[in-house]
């Protein structure tokens, strides 16, 4: 990198790229920063009251804020646990015993990226409707109703696991690459460790940063997810924002600013976890 900039400074046309770069940065800064500033101004300023932070205060007491946020956090926690419990053993198994399944895993973990979420919802909605009719005379009927409980919609957890699978897969794959899984596992097994012991006391501690980043990405995705939840008729955080915006414009923009801050904090957490790992 240093060599490239060094070369440019020597060459005759050095002044031009620098001016050009400045223009690019200025335009980008204007495009990306003005909406940020304008949104903030929108939340704190009203022609009648002048500048006040009351919109942010109202937020905490707004009807449904706490309920929907708790629902989203609960869904995120359940999704993280389920996706890790499913994908980690599968990835270890493919790595250690069944390398031939690897292409299958790659395809499975790319499909949710190619298929638009809204088409996935269309399929889920239809399955639930048809399923409820078909299963009505059987004992499974209670199950399919329980899965759709508005208090804690398990069906959303199932859908989110599929949606986050590609990100979790990438993250864990990167983590597994940095360690010699086969040697570690065989050594532990030869010393008499049981499989659960190998998984939780040998593999997991070595994968801590990959697991953390997978969890943070899942959390960010679930907190912001709107399409699936709204079309299936549930009201977690992202859906509540829209409902609330109907009654109070300032409030919804304030929530949007907070959600941007939240994403920033989550990604900061991911990068610090990874940064610390690199320094080791």
């Amino acid at each position, binding site marked *: 990198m240093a060599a*490239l*900039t060094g*070369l440019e400074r020597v060459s005759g046309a050095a002044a031009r*790229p620098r001016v*050009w*770069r400045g223009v*690019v*940065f200025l335009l*980008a800064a204007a*495009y*990306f920063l*003005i*909406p940020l500033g*304008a*949104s903030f101004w*929108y939340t704190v300023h009203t022609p009648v009251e002048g500048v006040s932070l009351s919109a942010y205060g109202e937020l905490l007491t707004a009807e449904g804020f706490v309920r929907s946020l708790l629902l989203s956090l609960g869904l995120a926690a359940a999704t993280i646990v389920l996706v890790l*419990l*499913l994908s980690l*053993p*599968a990835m270890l*198994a*493919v790595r*250690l*015993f*069944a390398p031939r*399944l690897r292409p299958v895993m790659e395809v*499975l973990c790319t*499909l*949710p*990226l*190619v*298929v*638009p*979420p809204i*088409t*996935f919802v*269309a*399929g*889920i*909605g*239809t399955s639930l409707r048809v399923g409820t009719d078909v299963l009505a005379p059987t004992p499974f009927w209670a199950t399919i109703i329980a899965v759709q409980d508005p208090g804690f919609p398990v069906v959303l957890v*199932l*859908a989110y*696991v599929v949606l986050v699978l590609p990100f979790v897969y990438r993250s864990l794959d990167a983590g597994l690459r940095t360690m010699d899984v086969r040697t570690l596992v065989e050594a532990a*097994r030869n010393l008499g460790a049981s499989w659960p012991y190998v998984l939780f006391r040998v593999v997991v501690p070595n994968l801590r940063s990959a697991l953390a980043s997978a969890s943070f990405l899942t959390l960010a995705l679930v907190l*912001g*997810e*709107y*399409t699936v939840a709204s*079309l299936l008729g549930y009201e977690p955080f*992202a859906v509540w924002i*829209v409902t609330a*915006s109907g009654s109070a414009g300032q409030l*919804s*923009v304030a*929530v*949007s600013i907070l959600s*941007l801050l939240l*994403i*920033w904090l989550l990604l900061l957490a991911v990068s610090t976890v990874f940064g610390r790992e690199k320094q080791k």
Partner: protein
Amino acid sequence: MNRTRSRGWLGALPLLAFFAFVFGVPAIALVAGAFTAQGRPSLANLAQSLQGGYLTAMIGSVRLSAVVALLGAVLGTFLAHAVVTSRFTLLREAVLTASGVLANFGGVPLAFFWIATLGNSGVVSGLIGLPSGSLYTFWGLAVVYLYFSIPLMVLVMAPALDGLRPQWREAAANNGATAWHYWRFVALPVLTPAMLGGVVLLFGSSFSAYATANAMVGTVVPLVTLKIASALTGDVLIGYENIALALSLDMIVVAGLVMAIYLPLQRRSSRWLH
């Protein structure tokens, strides 16, 4: 080890079974529903999904995604180049971090940001005298989608641009190449796979975006995701769920086609990528 080896793949079984169930059942329901009209197998839904308002919406979605993907790819590459060649490490770090955040910032909050900025009672639209409703148009939506597309492109292109070796530029210059020659015959061919990947990624994310469009334009701009949603939630007559399924199938076909065009191109041009 032999005995475990034969049973070891069972660890992958829960995930495969889960995926087959949670992804497979809706997929089957989708295809079955798309080919069923009035309880009988038929092509009527698919035929209807490619006519009139539905066709307009599909074309609108493809056009919007293509515009955003191309503009985002070009602008994002320029920004990435400016970032990568910048001498200020702090600026570079700041732009890359911001790109990471903004690339993940979509959905409803993004729509509210722009409504607060350029909407009818927005802060900036008042200052510059923007005509009412300008944000709630095709180009308004394109401007908003670029807000997450450009950062996404920066994230894709920055590592690729970092991989351009200074020696290549020196070698080209020694052979009498101008800056144009260098870009046309050396740098761009090397960057093509990353750029293609970026364009496909941008196209896909705009194509499947629903939350932002729904919060912003409602049904003013015809988009296929909005049509699917309104058919699903029964805003229209009952019995239109299967039209939604047919439209979904159309969307998957378009997304699949884009991937099918991209993969061979990418394979052909990735020879230089290490």
